[in-house]
């Protein structure tokens, strides 16, 4: 089986050889004056968009009943913060969703890395499992959410399971590809220096695949959140997904948007944590490479 058989560009790094980014010239650090200009423009865009929305809603250009209104979204948020939601305090909802997403993410990443490296290193396993993985990957995995709720009930575990499935494949394909793309020279060198197969995996294959794996982790925390929230749509007693579906049920567009704002904050915070983790783990790379600041 060639490596292309089960590779899916779910979350591939921008270039097939991640380290070759080194060659790409990066814009020099923006000068302070230019930087202030950029920030001013960003703020201006925010003001125009949100202000325009507010204005359109107030003047009746768009119907605030369907499209919401920024000021009411803010008051919905403060209402949730002060008085809690129908399902209990807001923090509890955030915590539950976060718990589901983080658990699903961690389990999915660990399983994905282990399976990806194992299949990437052991040709027999890759040959045997390739058709199964292709079939599983072709199923839109969101539909598994219904099965998981039937199996595991309305609690946390069904959402975790859905998040795991979503995260697993993204990480798996990257770990697999990363293990396949290891520099043959490095492997030969390590073997001659006395490395056993396990030592090659531990000291050469895994670190070298790490660039790929981390690239996939950026995407897959998003997948974990999707899994948790969609799972909550399908049936839950707590969580941000539940807030959204309740708001939807009561035609409360502001509630849907307010939940979206919270989810965005959570996702950005997680992205920041992953970036810190990445900088730690990939500290050996030339500086230009660990700068993930662009977007």
């Amino acid at each position, binding site marked *: 089986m060639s490596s292309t058989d089960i590779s899916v560009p779910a979350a591939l790094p921008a270039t097939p050889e991640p380290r070759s980014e080194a060659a790409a010239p990066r814009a020099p650090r923006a000068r302070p004056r230019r930087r202030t200009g950029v920030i001013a423009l960003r703020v201006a865009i925010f003001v125009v968009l949100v202000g325009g929305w507010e204005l359109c809603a107030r003047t009746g250009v768009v119907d605030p009943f369907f499209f919401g209104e920024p000021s009411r979204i803010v008051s919905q948020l403060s209402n949730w913060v002060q008085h809690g939601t129908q399902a209990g305090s807001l923090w509890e909802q955030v915590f539950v969703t976060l718990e589901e997403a983080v658990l699903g993410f961690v389990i999915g990443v660990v399983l994905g890395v282990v399976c990806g490296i194992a299949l990437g290193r052991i040709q027999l396993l890759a040959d045997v499992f390739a058709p199964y993985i292709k079939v599983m990957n072709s199923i839109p995995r969101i539909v598994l959410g219904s099965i998981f709720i039937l199996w595991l009930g309305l609690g946390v575990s069904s959402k975790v399971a859905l998040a795991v499935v979503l995260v697993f494949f993204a990480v798996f394909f990257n770990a697999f590809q990363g293990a396949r793309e290891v520099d043959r020279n*490095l492997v030969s060198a390590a073997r001659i*220096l*006395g490395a*056993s197969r396990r*030592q090659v995996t531990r*000291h050469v294959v895994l*670190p*070298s695949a790490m660039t790929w794996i981390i690239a996939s982790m950026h995407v897959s925390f998003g997948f974990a959140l999707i899994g948790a929230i969609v799972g909550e749509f399908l049936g839950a007693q707590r969580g941000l997904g539940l807030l959204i579906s309740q708001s939807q049920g009561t035609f409360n567009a502001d509630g849907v948007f307010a939940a979206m704002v919270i989810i965005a904050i959570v996702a950005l915070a997680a992205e920041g944590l992953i970036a810190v983790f990445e900088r730690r783990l990939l500290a*050996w*790379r030339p500086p230009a490479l660990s700068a993930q600041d662009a977007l």
Partner: protein
Amino acid sequence: MHSGGETRSGREPAIELRGVSKRFRTPAGSIFTALADVDLTVEPGQFCAVVGPSGCGKSTTLTLVSGLEAASDGDVLVHGKPVTGIGDDVGFVFQSDALLPWKTVLENVAIGPRFRGVARDKAHDRARDWLRRVGLSQFEDRHPHQLSGGMRKRVALAQSLINEPAILLMDEPFSALDVQTRSIMSNELLGLWEQSRPSVIFVTHDLEEAIALSDRVVVMTAGPGTVKEVYDIDLPRPRQVPEIRFDPRFVELYEEIWDTLRDEVQRAYARTAAGAAA
């Protein structure tokens, strides 16, 4: 004083290839013969250079001796025993950097002993000793990408030599370096080699480098590679690589070997030129 070439009776050759061939299946499905019927002997402690046009199977010879690949035909013997896998006392310096970019210089040098089960502290002590010998003591905490090409080569040398290999295989190790760095590195290599005297096969396409370093120069034919001629280099040791090329004996040897090598280089070139025209 050591003079290469003469067979020391009663001792087994360190490396011996007898009628060795290596064929590869190309992606298109045809068979490509890299080596055909190669006979080659390297005595213990001998520095043997292999020169030949590019693509003549020089590097393939090294992979066979190291045990990374198996020969299609013939016998490959190391210390009289057939090579069945990667040997314990073989070192290999690759043409490209084979340092692990995610490990520091110290960890890279210590990794051979670590792989072989030496405790971390002890391995690091030995690695520091080797870094001192190659003059990189102050750089032990750096990562490979922070070093120059010459420094990386020194790390690679220390990484191989720390295992104290009886056989050292080198595949155009200095070809990526500039000319000055290269002659300095060649000199340092000889200094390190004198300390433990492993048997060396040094593959290069640079005849000057080959003569300056070695006791024996093997000229290979344009592919499929086979041994065309073997020359013993009777230049005295220790040698100073940057100066030795002015030695009249060096010039004599160079002319003699170049006569043989030139035909092969031209044949190889004609082949690639014909390939490009087709």
